[in-house]
């Protein structure tokens, strides 16, 4: 048996664990970082710093307390705050064509969660919620456009909200 590194440290302390965590969660973390920092370069920096901090503190991660995903997001939240502060004293560094978020961080996190959940539900469900709720179009009009009964549109809204609930719970949402 030969391997490099110290195999006796806790979860996420091994580089292999970090690679697995990166494969599982980097997309979401990056998405939130872009959403809250508004800059692709800063978002990369934030994700990198998140995994480095997670590796340094790997011994302290306890899956009994919370999921790895929740823990990584808690670290990212702090990183984003730090980068936001740094940017505040270095104005004009945010570039990259993405509108920076001006909302408080908790609001940005909530918005990102709902947007990410909307991405993950089925196209049929997402479409009826977008058309009827976000665009305010009459149910009859949407039903006609899609060639289905109005009752089907209403039931799709119901199943769409249920699907959203499931996805949000998978992302750590609790009442």
């Amino acid at each position, binding site marked *: *048996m*030969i*391997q*490099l*590194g*110290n*195999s*006796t440290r806790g979860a996420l302390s091994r*580089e292999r664990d*970090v*690679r697995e965590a*990166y*494969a599982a969660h*980097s*997309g979401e973390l*990056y*998405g939130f970082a*872009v*959403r809250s920092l508004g800059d*692709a370069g800063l*978002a*990369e920096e934030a*994700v*990198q710093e998140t*995994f*480095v901090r997670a*590796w*340094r503190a790997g011994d302290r991660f306890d899956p009994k307390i919370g999921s790895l995903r929740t823990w990584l997001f808690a670290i990212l939240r702090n990183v984003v705050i730090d980068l936001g502060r740094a940017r505040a004293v270095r104005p004009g560094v945010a570039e990259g064509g*993405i509108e920076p978020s001006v909302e408080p961080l908790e*609001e940005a996190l*909530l*918005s990102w*969660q*709902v*947007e*990410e959940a*909307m*991405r993950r539900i089925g196209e049929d469900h*997402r479409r009826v*919620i*977008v058309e*009827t*709720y*976000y*665009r305010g179009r009459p*149910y009859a009009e949407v039903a006609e456009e899609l060639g289905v009964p109005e*009752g089907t549109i*209403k*039931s799709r*809204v*119901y*199943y*769409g*909200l*249920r699907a*959203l*609930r499931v996805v*949000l719970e998978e992302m750590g949402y609790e*009442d």
Partner: protein
Amino acid sequence: MKIRNDCREWRELLGVYALGQLKGDERTGLEAHLEGCAQCRAELALLAPVAQMLPHADPERFEAAAPQPPPELGARIAATIAGERQKVERQHRRRVFGGFALGGATAALAAAVLAIFVLGGGGGGQPEQHVKFTAVPKGVNIYATLEPHAYGTEIRMYVHGVASGTLCTVSLRGPHGVSYPAGTFRYRWGDDSEAVLSSALDLSRTRAISVRAGNRTFVAPVGRASIAANTNEEEPT
């Protein structure tokens, strides 16, 4: 108004109701149904918080493709962590083996005495042991950290200064000189990482550790009971 006797049909209106968009008779009928249906009230209680979260999302954002991290970011993070780990390991070695950085005769004497030293912190209440090979050519450094486990002994080897690509074969020696293989690795120039190997021999019964690097074998004693000088054994021809 459509007659709805089926609970499921009422339930399928709960989404529109939770969004505040159910009007007229349908709204009145559903509210009457909710009065008498605990199941539908419970379902509404699950949907209402989700409906209240919708205003926080911007459809322009979620209808666009989700931003993806650049493909090289994972490798960059892995390299950063590997670099930091090696830095920590070097600091650890300097701290642990720093006592050997003495000069001349003092160093030789100190090495003979300090070749074996024991630090706390190993598993199962047993200490791990740090061993420095002292009988090595100038410019060569070999360190080993031995940690007891249920299966035997974990050996973390650090070799520096031998020719790049040298095959290193590690064994533990038990009582009566019986040798227990621990594994092999190749030293690569510029690679400061440790090779982690294992042997079935219990640390408590380990008397010495040997490293055959190329055609030379270096031996260092292990354990308090077996204080002996490091030896540099030429490979028999």
